[in-house]
């Protein structure tokens, strides 16, 4: 995989790995008997494994300059594999915790296996592990094709991909040991946050350096979305994770903000993680893979520009709708609600743009499950954004907030939109990357599609039902003017829906396993190898200027 590194890059890789290993060692020593020590050791082991890997290829012959006439897809390939591993793991944990709400004693009497610790393992694994790896992998691919330029060097893409996965592993293992900031979707502690920031800066630098060498004067709109994803996530990550560690040897830190300011900052982050991680990033994916797979240009390029600025501007105001009727000042709640409603316009423009692109290619949608994945994703995107605006209305929110309706809404977005567009894109990209003429089994893609759709629908319907019933039971009064139901009554009423939800999740998990198997077999099975197409190559550099400076 890393055989294409030049001599200089191999040396830099060793230096970086030694630096990381040293950081791990220092954390391990400073931590004494804090759980941080385990993470120090984990970082050290990861760095050491990397060192061995680089040494094992260190004396291999250097790649020749012929490589510069091709795109650099090795990190993309590895990223796709990692994304599928995280998908299966994250979906499994998700279904496991769903069953925990049915059979709460499945915890082996151990802290790491209890619901409260495994829930963030699930959310981080699917959102950041699966979603993040898919975004990084596809962004490398799209960036190179739309710029007609090769990635600027071969080391930094690996640094970003593997560094990001180190962050995910630190996060997930941390929760099981009880290391958490408790900020939803930003649970990793201070040292993991600092590490992610380093990785993220390098990630954006790759983008700028590749764009600087692009042939097309215009930057294709997919890249706008990917760039907004990287940039805004950086801003959100920095502000929301400001904290003071207890000591250098302690994993624990205390958030800089407290109470109402902390709540607003957290949901400004939380909602915009949805906006710029789960929406902008995957819209970037959509604006590239839908036209390419359908073989038709995007319906309205101009509409995509307008929705881009609409989404970038409006979303940042919407976070406060998570705090209706709380101690947050009402003017902030009202602003959040207003902008959440306006957000529907750019959101539906994007969904319509995708669906109208398919207009005239419906025969392909019927025959090709991969394209159907993307079509259904756009439909779910439209439904979920409508539901999101609806739930942001104060009076609706008073019923839905704190209930399973929110969980259903999130999963309509995560299963229906994020996962479906990703699976569609992965099924598109895998045969191209590994030079196969098609997936190992188109039938299994079909099976995966129906499992995923059935799973998502069962899940979402179960949560709509339980959420609305819950919300109504909590506010129902009897004739004498007292509350009609105790909290326990509502808990008992939830049970059938919790079982249905766990079954829906199981279907989706099985679909994910089928997909992972299909992708694995596509990679393993030599099918008819496509002739190396001369067209899929970066623009040759004129004037003999070296494309790649050693160690760049």
């Amino acid at each position: 995989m890393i055989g294409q590194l030049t001599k200089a890059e191999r040396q830099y890789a060793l230096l970086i790995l030694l630096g990381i290993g040293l950081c791990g060692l220092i954390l391990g020593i400073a931590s004494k008997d804090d759980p941080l020590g385990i993470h120090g050791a984990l970082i050290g082991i990861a760095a050491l494994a990397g060192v061995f890997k680089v040494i094992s290829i260190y004396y291999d012959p250097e790649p020749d300059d012929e490589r510069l006439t091709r795109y650099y897809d090795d990190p993309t390939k590895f990223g796709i594999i990692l994304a599928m591993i995280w998908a299966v793991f994250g979906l499994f944990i998700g279904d496991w915790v769903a069953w925990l709400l049915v059979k709460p004693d499945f915890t082996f009497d151990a802290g790491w296996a209890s619901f409260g610790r495994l829930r963030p393992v699930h959310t981080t694994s699917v959102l950041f592990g699966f979603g993040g790896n898919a975004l990084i992998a596809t962004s490398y691919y799209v960036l190179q094709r739309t710029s007609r330029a090769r990635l600027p060097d071969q080391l930094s893409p690996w640094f970003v991909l593997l560094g990001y996965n180190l962050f995910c592993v630190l996060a997930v293992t941390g929760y099981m040991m009880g290391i958490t900031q408790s900020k939803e979707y930003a649970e990793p502690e201070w040292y993991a946050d600092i590490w992610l920031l380093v990785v993220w800066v390098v990630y954006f630098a790759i983008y700028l350096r590749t764009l600087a060498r692009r042939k097309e004067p215009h930057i294709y709109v997919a890249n706008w979305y990917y760039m907004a994803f990287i940039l805004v996530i950086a801003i959100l990550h920095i502000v929301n994770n400001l904290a003071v560690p207890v000591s250098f040897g302690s994993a624990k830190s205390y958030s800089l903000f407290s109470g109402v300011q902390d709540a607003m900052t957290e949901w400004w982050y939380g909602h915009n993680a949805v906006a710029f991680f789960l929406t902008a990033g995957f819209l970037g994916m959509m604006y590239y893979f839908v036209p390419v797979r359908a073989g038709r240009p995007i319906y309205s390029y101009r509409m995509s520009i307008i929705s881009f600025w609409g989404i970038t501007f409006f979303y940042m105001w919407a976070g406060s709708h998570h705090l209706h009727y709380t101690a947050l000042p009402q003017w902030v709640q009202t602003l959040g609600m207003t902008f959440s409603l306006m957000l529907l316009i750019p959101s539906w423009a994007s969904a319509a743009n995708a669906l109208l692109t398919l207009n005239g290619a419906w025969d392909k949608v019927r025959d090709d499950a991969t394209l159907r994945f993307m079509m259904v994703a756009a439909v779910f995107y439209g439904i979920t954004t409508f539901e999101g605006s609806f739930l942001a209305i104060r009076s609706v929110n008073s019923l839905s907030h704190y209930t399973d309706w929110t969980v259903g809404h999130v999963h309509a977005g995560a299963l229906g939109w994020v996962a479906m567009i990703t699976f569609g894109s992965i099924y598109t990209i895998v045969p191209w990357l590994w030079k196969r003429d098609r997936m190992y089994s188109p039938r299994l893609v079909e099976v995966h599609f129906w499992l995923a759709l059935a799973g998502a629908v069962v899940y979402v319907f179960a949560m709509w039902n339980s959420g609305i019933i819950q919300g109504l039971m909590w506010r129902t009064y009897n004739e004498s003017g007292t509350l009609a139901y105790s909290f326990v009554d509502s808990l008992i009423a939830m049970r059938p829906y919790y079982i249905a939800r766990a079954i829906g999740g199981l279907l989706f998990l099985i679909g994910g396993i089928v997909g992972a198997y299909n992708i694995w077999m596509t990679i393993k099975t030599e099918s008819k190898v496509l002739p190396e197409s001369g067209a899929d190559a970066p623009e040759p550099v004129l004037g003999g200027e070296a494309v790649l400076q050693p160690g760049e």
Partner: protein
Amino acid sequence: MFGLHYRLERKAIGLTLGIILVASIGGLVEIAPLFTIHQTVEDAPDMRVYTPLELAGRNVYIREGCYACHSQMVRTLRDEVERYGPYSLAVESKYDHPMLWGSKRTGPDLARIGGKYSDEWHVAHLNNPRDVLSVSVMPAYSWLLKTTLRTDDLGAHLKAQRAVGVPYTDDMIANASKDAYGQAAPDSPYADGVTQRYGKATNVRAFDGKPGELTEMDALVAYLQVLGRLTDAAHKSGANATR
């Protein structure tokens, strides 16, 4: 003008700056004033800080992810006030770094749980919720009773809390470990220091029923019993008071 705009967009840096500018406006307008407007957080002169034991219990609460299923925010809605108690004020989480308002009620809200049940009830419930309530879906936290609470670093915890704005005194920081022990051992010589530093109303008792040992159960129950009781402000304020 549009020629300029076009050139700007062609430059990746221009696009970058445009995204940052457009995206920043919303956050700035909504978050920045929360820090400068005085009315955002009410005044409550009787508001006290968490004792070291309660803070340690809060950290157990965070560690176990209790916030994933329990909110600590009673909204200004009639049914919530009648079910849980007076609606929450901003001042009540003034010293909560981070806040634990939560977003989901798989279990009930806990903002007003302090003093509602006995220590014994909490210990039995945490040890195995189904001993108390057969239909509960909460995990059992039986290891809390067996795990000794770590107290040697509590001084450092208080110091970090002070760094982010919680008014712990040097005296409180210096005696953090002793106070944690004393609060759960009413007959020990350390017990007096707790009420002296944190006020007469502080709960000082063997929360887990075992005065000699300081367990994580002590800390968590101490924390749960003080929820909603750091200040009286919520019971006195506007609509809550007339109720």
